[in-house]
């Protein structure tokens, strides 16, 4: 019976450095943009698409998937958070909430 047990994970004798990380973006339907849904590990881009399909669209969440190497993402720095984002906090006039919506105007 012992040979019916699945082999242990990985291959202990090779120097497996670990798979690179990929960021996954899914478009839920036509006309919408892709949204970031999470990340996963995969050895190459095609496998990353496969893994993303299995991890993030198995309940019919998507019609299109992008995968991007996480190393390609340029992120804003937490240290720059204040100069980056604070100046917009006290400018409510940038929100389009100061207009009277004409009666009968739909889909706004």
């Amino acid at each position, binding site marked *: 019976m012992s040979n019916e047990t699945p082999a242990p994970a990985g*291959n202990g004798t090779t120097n497996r450095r670990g798979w690179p990380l990929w960021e996954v973006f899914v478009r839920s339907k036509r006309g919408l943009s892709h949204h970031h849904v999470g990340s996963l590990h995969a050895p190459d881009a095609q496998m990353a698409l496969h893994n993303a399909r299995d991890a993030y669209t198995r309940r019919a969440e998507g019609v299109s998937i992008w995968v991007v190497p996480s190393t390609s993402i340029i992120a804003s720095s937490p240290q720059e958070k204040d100069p980056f984002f604070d100046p917009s906090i006290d400018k409510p006039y940038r929100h389009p909430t100061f207009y009277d919506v004409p009666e009968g105007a739909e889909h706004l």
Partner: protein
Amino acid sequence: MSIASEATRTLTPLARYTLGLGDDALIGSQRLCEWIANAPELEEDLALANIALDLLGQARALLTYAGQVEGRGRDEDDLAYLRDDWDILNVHLVEAPNGDFAVTMARLLVFSAYQYELYSRLRDSSDATLAGIAAKALKEVTYHREHATLWVLRLGDGTDYSASG
């Protein structure tokens, strides 16, 4: 053949054929499920579980139809759970132990390539139910075959370590 039960020996050709296809999917699914939490990576756990679930869905449809064709009131659960092992009609390929991950992937490649050709033709069957099951399953096994192909290619490339051996 002689140890099969009366119920199995007296199946009509269509019932026996459908049951055999259902058993291929059922046993193949159960073998793949052994990998859950044991695959080389978490992502591959998910991939194999998804493929196993596709096969289980095919098994449900095929066993249900086999029971209807048989006409003795057996449903998918009766056929899946209440038959003895010598009455289960799967091909040996899907029942053999998993071996290591590479063996499992090689087996999946052969099995999914077989299912792909089978369902491609069965889609045009004069039996409307089998044709319908095949049309749905064909999309699933197309993905299984692609996934297994990627892995067999990758494993065939080997590693620095295997090349130095």
